[in-house]
Every structure is written in structure tokens, then in C-alpha cells.
């Protein structure tokens, strides 16, 4: 009896708030999707990188950096996961500003860089050594370019959406990703695994989370006036 009463009450409240949403539509773009990306299982161990053959880079790292293909944080969180709107409002498709990618300490910074298809991309060599950046594009045109120390930045862009692995033809350990998307509604998880896609109008969206080792996971999310929540859980294996 009491159960039924509470259920009825909950239903009334829910309908009421739904009506209120329809009655006063929130300003476009005030909604967001936030959440956390975590893993279950045991992820592979990240390996320390020996840069001793490149002293000018090695001395920039007090402790050796590690591989980053499965970057984890406390509480089983996953870093460098690209979370983006794959269906629904895609936001702007042209960008006024370019994005910057750095080769510093024989490492790609940031490890994963998101950009729009067609957005200007500038690649800098901040090191005292030559790099030869080689994005392994499959959908876009693949290329590699040599950049001696002190060279001007490489000015380029990608025409089509694609996740492009990046390697250096001189330093085999250097590895990163370009996440070329057709949406500006994107967020990359930090060390705490959280993301925040802002500027969404109310509506239904498909959200995709991409992790370089584990691939993609998608879910449908309905956004109202405030922050909707979507969490992603990847299954990690030790090898």
C-alpha cells in the first residue's frame, strides 16, 4: 500500500518536472554530459622508456616517462579517453583557431590531441634533436616530415574524421594520437577519468568513448537543462 503511494508520488513529481521542462525551454547550449571513464580487470603495465641514447631529451625527465597506451589513475580511472557526440547535435564544424601539438622531451604533448576535420594543426619541435613525425593515417593521406631542431612548425590539417596513430621515425618509443572528429562536442578524460562535454542543447545524443587500446563504447544520453551523466567502463586485460 505504502509502496504504491510512493510510486504514484514519484510519478507525479517526474511528470511535473518533465512538464516544467517543456513549459520553459532552457537556453540552447546550456546542457552538458559529464561522467567518468573507468576500467574493470587488470590493465597492462606501462613500461618505462629508456631515452639514454638521446641525452638532450633524457635530462628533461627527472624520472623516466612510461608508455601511455593505457594511462590509469587512482580509482581505476582511464586517462586520454576521447568522449564525443557521435550522433545528435554535432556543434560547430569549422574552427576559428588552430590546435598545437608539441614534440618535447622526445614525447608527444598532449598524448592525444582532438581536432576538427579541416582544423589547422601546428606541430612544433621544441627539442634539441631532429624528429620525423609520421602520422599513420589510413583514411586521410599518410605522410612523414623531418623537423630538425629550430625548424618552423609544420602547418597542416586533416580532411576526414579519423583516429590517427602518430609515431616518430627517429625515436621508436614516441607515440601519440590525433583524434580528428566532425564534432566540436568533445572532451578528453583527465587523470581522474572525468570528462565534461559542454554547450549541448536539450535532446537525445549518442555519446562515444574511444580508448586507443580498448576501442569504442557508445551509449544514448538524453540531455535536459543541466548536466546529464554518462559513465563508461572498459574491460582491461593484463596483456
Amino acid at each position, binding site marked *: 500500500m505504502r509502496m504504491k503511494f510512493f510510486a504514484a508520488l514519484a510519478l507525479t513529481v517526474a511528470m511535473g518536472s518533465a512538464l516544467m521542462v517543456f513549459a520553459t525551454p532552457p537556453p540552447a547550449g546550456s546542457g552538458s554530459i559529464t561522467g567518468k571513464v573507468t576500467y574493470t580487470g587488470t590493465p*597492462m*603495465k*606501462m*613500461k*618505462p*622508456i*629508456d*631515452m*639514454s*641514447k*638521446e641525452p638532450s631529451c633524457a635530462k628533461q625527465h627527472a624520472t623516466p616517462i612510461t*608508455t601511455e*597506451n593505457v594511462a590509469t589513475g587512482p580509482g581505476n580511472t582511464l586517462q586520454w579517453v576521447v568522449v564525443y557526440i557521435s550522433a545528435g547535435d554535432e556543434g560547430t564544424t569549422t574552427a576559428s583557431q588552430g590546435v598545437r601539438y608539441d614534440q618535447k622531451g622526445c614525447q608527444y604533448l598532449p598524448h592525444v590531441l582532438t581536432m576538427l576535420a579541416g582544423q589547422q594543426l601546428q606541430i612544433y619541435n621544441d627539442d634539441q*634533436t*631532429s624528429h*620525423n613525425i609520421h602520422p599513420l593515417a589510413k583514411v586521410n593521406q599518410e605522410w612523414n616530415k*623531418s623537423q630538425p631542431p629550430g625548424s618552423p612548425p609544420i602547418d597542416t590539417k586533416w580532411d576526414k574524421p579519423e583516429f590517427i*596513430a602518430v*609515431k616518430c*621515425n*627517429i*625515436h*621508436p*618509443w614516441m*607515440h601519440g594520437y590525433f583524434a580528428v572528429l566532425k564534432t566540436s562536442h568533445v572532451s578528453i578524460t583527465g587523470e581522474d577519468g572525468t570528462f565534461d562535454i559542454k554547450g549541448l542543447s536539450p535532446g537525445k545524443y549518442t555519446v562515444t568513448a574511444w580508448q586507443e*587500446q580498448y576501442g569504442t563504447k557508445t551509449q544514448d544520453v538524453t540531455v535536459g537543462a543541466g548536466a546529464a551523466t554518462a559513465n563508461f567502463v572498459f574491460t582491461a*586485460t*593484463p*596483456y
Partner: protein
Amino acid sequence: MGRLFAVVVTVITLLSVSFFVMHTWWMPVDISTTGPAIDHQLEETMTGSGLLFLGGQLLLGLFVWQSSDKNPARKIKIFPGGANPLVAAAIILVGIEILTLTFVGSKAWAAVNLVPAAADSLHIDVQAEQFAFYFRYAGPDGQFGGLHPDKIDDGSGNYFGLDPANDVAARDDVVVGSLVIPVNRPILLTLHSKDVGHSFYVPELRIQQDFVPGIEIPVHFTATQTGKFEIVCTQLCGLGHYNMKAYLQVMSEADYEQWLKGQEGQ
């Protein structure tokens, strides 16, 4: 003019020979058990070819001097005896020299290349790729995992193409970017290349051996001194060849064991 040339030839000859006699630019310290035999052989080769060089050049200077003599009675116009005996003498002399060096030197060469590695050698696997060397130790189980070139993925640090998901022996393999070895212990390296031809050259070990893609090449040696030495690639292998190197660290047995333990933890 001819006499001046004769003097210049003689001076150049004596000067260049003196650099070798005084070891002005000589080899670095030798830290290998097979090194002394190689150095000895090198000395013999240098002495033999050096004496021939010295004799040949001084003779050249003498003849140039004589042929430009103003006095027609003393001036040489053709080589005494004609060209044929000269060519025959040169072929025989150089032939004997080369054969002798090959015969005498084969012992030093064989000690490095034909004598198999000691059974208790520490086995380390070496992968060369544009433009770095990687070294693999078997880990606590003493077993190397199998190599699967299709599994090579530099981005995740899988430089050798191990398959730890299906291959238990591969799971504890230690892969590092420097060659760390204990002193006075026989070492056996297996060289293989991921891409093109490279070379493993450690002047202090007196070892230089090419990597050939598709072939596993054994190299063995015993280091007799601790220290840090450079391993360089001496086979032009592409754009970053100048930058292709690694370090050899020879440690005491205790330091080596400690280092290995630390690596196994990672």
C-alpha cells in the same frame, strides 16, 4: 720540380708512418677477452702493410728523384728491367702478404666467429630497428618468449613482437634500451633486425657485426672491465642512422643482479 715532388712524397710517407708508429690516433681501451688477439693481429697487419707502404713510397721517391736528374748518364728513363718484372714482383709480394695475414689472422677471427659460445653464457636477445637498439633478457623463468613480428608495436613498448596473452614465457621477459651485462661472464647475443641492415659495433669489445633482416646472428664475448661504452650502428640504415646508438654498461656481478631485479619488477 721533379726533385721537389720526390721530397714531398718522402715527407708525406714518413709523417703518415710516424702517426702509426707513435699510435697518435689509436684504438680505445680493449675490454674483451678476445681483444688482445685481435689487437695483436692488427699490429701485425699494420706492421706488414706499413713496411710495404714505407718501402714502396720511398722507392717511388727515389725513382722520381733519379728520373729528374739533370745528368743524362744518371737519369733513369725506364724502370730497371722493364715493367713486367715489377708487376710480377708486386703481385707476388702483395699476394704473399695477404695470404700470410689471412692464415695468421684466421685464429683470432675464428675465436670470435667460429668457436661457439660457452654453454653457461648469459643469453641476451637484440633487436635493431630504425633507429634504436633494444635488448631482451629471459626474466626469472630463464625462458624467452617467442617472437611474432606481426605483434611488434613500438607505441606500447612491444619492440620484439612478444605475445604475452598466449605465451607464458614472454610475460616476464625484460626489454630495455641499454645493454647491461656482468663483468667476466660470457655473453651470447642473438642479433636480429626489424627492418633493414644495421650493425652492432662496440670498439672497446673489438666487435663489429651486421644485423641482417630475416637472419639470427650469434655474437659472443666476455667483458673484462666495468664501465659505460657506446654501441653504435655502423651500417648506413636511413635518415636517423647518425643517431642510432645505445650504451653498454658492464657491471660487477652483484650490481648486475640488483639491476636485473629492479627491471623484473617493472
